[in-house]
């Protein structure tokens, strides 16, 4: 067991009375969003605003010879057009990650084009219509190169290399071997399987966009991003402008899902143009651009092999090899971190005593892949769930029983996995049993409902998982670690103004901040005003990703609130001529215990603290505000000498199950019932947690059944619109029945664990398991997503699984 680096468990230092936490509090964000008053980056209007458009590579792999923009520059209305050499003074993205090949991309292509969508040139005109027209006149000369469109292509002998200097197409290659694992697998019995998850796009409804303005010696950048301060630091480094001269504003964000955690070329080029032209410049990504230039995710091949106990089916040793197709790899905040999380997730949440997990990331001529909600975990749980079910089919044991062998009990806590992950609490077994209790009658009911339809088969699937939340960013970025900060200021009228480094990408973060602040100060929630996403106003923080908001907000807000409370109590006691210890907080102020007439309000205290400071006690300075940083005690940023790391501050857990209907004539799979149980500890706002689960499960279902980023053999993307990237509608997504357990994390503020990504972890696992369950007596085993009708029909035709008909 690891020891805490910085002392005892977090304690707010005062009695936290939850008046709003856990209760139904409607979202304050809605006041603007429901009436069209939100402000997204495309809504920013500035005098003199001009618009940029990008020319992007149409070749998947080519050497850029020349870019002739003369005709573009002559086009009426064009203020500027340039390719790489026309934008001097932009540095390359730094290489901070020491465990992989260096990728130091230039924001505009400077020679090699490695995917369709690579930004090659930019034009600025009075509006986007003109900028796009003008770019039609660009003359680009390229030498086409042979393309690498799959892992198999990339690793073939004499494969074309994307980066010659590497000597191979491996961006990262971590082999792993363990003698005991080899020995157990050699002894048998063994189970093995190869599972493939397809390339997907996080696809927020709002595309990316950047507006920049340079005025009075400062650069202001609005971006639809998940981390304003990280973007500010990146712009500072690439443009060599001091951080204090840059303000980054993240206005309303129309969803991020990981795609907007990366630091993209346009977020540097548009600010450069604003400085160069002395006019505000805007670029709003169109959907086709988004599908080729915002990160993709999830494309992974997982090869699993396990030894198990013949009687119980319990896995005794597991060997896995993951190969992730990360596209061209040219993305800041590398796309390899998801593969490392996938590797750890194959065994996370399972009692498997011995394992060896290899992982490699391979570059191909596709859009770089990166972060997507779930960040590697959905891929892993998808594969390992199929493997566990396969043991049941091989042994004739009940599927649920084989799963049960691997689940944590409360008595296992804290459980230190060989990877270093330290799971300190959870409702792993209880969650699993609860989800099965909901599933069993649903399966029965559906079987009865469809018993007279010969072409309909019913199947069910289930899984349980742990979800790393509030993780380190050091492994991902090689630079930023993970902390966050919030600031509380009591205004002269007693209102609380709160800012935070945690930002909102649409989840309801402002409401959560208001709830925590109101409860921490003991004030009505209406007295709390929240500001996020402004690097001038908010303390340095890392933003919204990794299901981190709840934990870091609670930690920082409670700490800041303690200081503010203590000082406010002293001022109030002075005004009431009472002792600090005799005061109670409530009803919007402070009163002497047992004598309601002796009362001063927060407004009285705020007035004295900031305006009528002559009424302060002699030993108290004016002002009533505090900024506090929260840095979880148990979170580790570097692997130890044994290669271990506890890379997440807290570990949520969950269990999911579904019933599917498979039509054997058409191959259509329909999810009839979906159950999701989640345990993120005590909930700040249950309605928001439900919403996070619904949305995440829907994205998981989308990946399991529908969405697929495809390329042709020449590297041309075939999924560049919503016509051919099939995001599900309300008709494809079933009711998602969400249950909660609330097991507190002993070392987290208020016992909180993160929420947001967990819902995505289960769907590919349980839907695939359910389709196999429905069809395995026809010799069908599904091992690849998305489970499209044609794929199901092909599998039915093959009926090739040697284990198929023999077991139920």
């Amino acid at each position: 067991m690891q020891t805490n680096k910085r002392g005892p468990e977090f304690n707010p230092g005062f009695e936290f009375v939850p008046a709003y936490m856990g209760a139904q509090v409607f979202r304050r964000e809605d006041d603007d969003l429901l009436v069209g008053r939100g402000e997204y980056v495309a809504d920013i209007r500035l005098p003199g605003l001009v618009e940029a458009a990008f020319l992007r590579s149409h070749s998947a792999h080519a050497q850029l010879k020349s870019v002739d923009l003369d005709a573009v520059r002559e086009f009426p209305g064009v203020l500027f057009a340039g390719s790489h050499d026309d934008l001097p003074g932009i540095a390359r993205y730094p290489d901070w990650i020491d465990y992989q090949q260096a990728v130091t991309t230039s924001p505009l292509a400077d020679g090699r084009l490695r995917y369709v969508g690579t930004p090659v040139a930019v034009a600025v005109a009075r509006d986007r219509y003109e900028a796009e027209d003008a770019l039609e006149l660009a003359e680009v000369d390229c030498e086409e190169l042979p393309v690498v469109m799959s892992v198999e292509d990339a690793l073939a002998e004499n494969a074309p290399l994307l980066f010659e200097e590497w000597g191979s197409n491996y961006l990262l290659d971590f082999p792993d071997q363990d003698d005991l694992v080899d020995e157990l697998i050699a002894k048998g019995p063994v189970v093995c399987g190869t599972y493939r998850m397809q390339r997907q796009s996080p696809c927020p409804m709002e595309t990316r966009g950047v507006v920049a303005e340079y005025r009075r010696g400062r650069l202001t950048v609005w971006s639809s991003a998940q981390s304003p301060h990280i973007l500010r630091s990146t712009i500072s480094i690439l443009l060599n402008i001091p951080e204090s001269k840059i303000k980054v504003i993240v206005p309303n964000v129309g969803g991020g899902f990981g795609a907007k955690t990366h630091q993209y070329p346009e977020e540097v080029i548009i600010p450069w143009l604003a400085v160069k032209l002395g006019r505000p410049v805007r670029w709003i990504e169109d959907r086709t651009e988004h599908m080729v230039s915002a990160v993709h995710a999830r494309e992974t091949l997982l090869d699993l092999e396990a030894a198990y106990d013949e009687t119980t089916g319990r896995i005794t040793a597991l060997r896995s090899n993951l190969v992730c197709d990360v596209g061209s790899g040219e993305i800041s905040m590398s796309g390899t971190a998801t593969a490392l999380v996938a590797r750890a997730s194959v065994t996370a949440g399972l009692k498997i005593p011995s394992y060896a997990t290899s992982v490699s990331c391979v570059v191909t001529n596709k859009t770089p892949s990166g972060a997507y909600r779930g960040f590697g975990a959905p891929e892993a749980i998808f594969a390992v769930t199929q493997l566990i079910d396969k043991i049941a089919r091989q042994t004739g044991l009940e599927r649920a029983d084989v799963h049960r062998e691997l689940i944590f009990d409360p008595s296992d806590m804290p459980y230190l996995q060989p990877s270093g992950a330290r799971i300190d609490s959870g409702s792993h077994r209880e969650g699993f049993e609860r989800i099965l209790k909901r599933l069993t009658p649903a399966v029965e009911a559906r079987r009865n409902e469809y018993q007279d339809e010969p072409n309909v088969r019913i199947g069910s699937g289930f899984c349980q998982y742990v979800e790393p939340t509030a993780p380190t960013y050091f492994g991902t970025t090689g630079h930023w670690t993970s902390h966050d900060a919030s600031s509380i200021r009591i205004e002269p009228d007693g209102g609380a103004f709160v800012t935070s480094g945690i930002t909102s990408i649409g989840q309801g973060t402002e409401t959560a901040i208001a709830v925590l602040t109101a409860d921490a100060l003991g004030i009505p929630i209406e007295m709390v005003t929240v500001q996020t996403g402004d690097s001038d106003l908010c303390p340095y923080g890392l933003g919204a990703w990794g299901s981190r908001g709840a934990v870091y907000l609670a930690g920082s807000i409670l700490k800041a609130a303690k200081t503010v409370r203590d000082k406010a109590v002293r001022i109030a006691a002075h005004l009431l001529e009472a002792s600090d210890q005799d005061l109670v907080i409530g009803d919007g102020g402070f009163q002497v215990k047992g004598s309601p007439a002796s009362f001063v309000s927060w407004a009285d205290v705020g007035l004295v603290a900031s305006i009528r400071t002559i009424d302060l006690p002699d030993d108290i300075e004016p002002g009533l505000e505090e900024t506090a940083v929260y840095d979880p005690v148990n979170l580790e940023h570097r692997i130890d000498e044994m290669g271990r790391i506890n890379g997440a501050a807290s570990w949520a857990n969950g269990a999911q199950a579904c019933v599917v209907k498979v039509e054997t004539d058409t191959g259509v799979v329909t999810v009839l019932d979906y159950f999701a149980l989640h345990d993120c500890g005590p909930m700040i706002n249950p309605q928001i947690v439900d919403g996070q689960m619904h949305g995440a499960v829907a994205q998981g279902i989308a990946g399991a059944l529908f969405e697929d980023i495809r390329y042709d053999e020449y590297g041309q993307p075939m999924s560049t619109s919503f016509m051919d990237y099939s995001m599900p509608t309300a008709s494809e997504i079933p009711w998602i029945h969400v249950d909660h357990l609330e097991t507190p994390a002993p070392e987290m503020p208020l016992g909180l664990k993160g929420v947001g990504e967990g819902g995505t972890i289960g769907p590919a696992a349980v839907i695939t398991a359910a389709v196999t369950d429905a069809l395995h007596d026809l010799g069908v085993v599904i091992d690849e997503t998305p489970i499209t009708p044609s794929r199901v029909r092909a599998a039915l035709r093959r009926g090739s699984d040697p284990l198929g008909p023999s077991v139920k």
Partner: protein
Amino acid sequence: MTSVGSTSNVERPRKSTSEIEVTVNGVREHLVVSNRKLLSDVLRDDLGLTGTHVGCEHGVCGACTVIVDDLAVRSCLMFAVQADGSTVTTVEGLAQDGKWSSMQTAFNEHHGLQCGFCTAGFLMTLSKAEPADYETDAEIRELLSGNLCRCTGYHNIVVAVKAAWGRGATE
């Protein structure tokens, strides 16, 4: 988006404009617009009604849905000149005297929105739907299937619609 390797040799388009008259959220507007300018862009750029969002610009996501002469239409698939003489309602026109419609209230109370980007499109589609035409959950989902949402999994949107229409509670 423009791609390298495009061979078209485009002449500068003749800047042709038209005068149009539209009534938007009850206000009569007289505008001179470029013939090729989309209704969504005119609403957002010329009239400052940025509550109408553009999610795909090819008519699939439904985020840009507005009401033109009583019909829910995608403003990204319509030129502004085609709206000449029409009456247009956008999300900014839904609340009356600062009071939310029952659907807006239901979306708030049942958490029918998260990032809010698609919300205007859903609200506009629903503003012209006749509840009696959508009796079952499946029919409500079919009605909503012209609007994409990436945050909610549609669950709480359907819950909100049912609440606003006085239907039985859903889990």
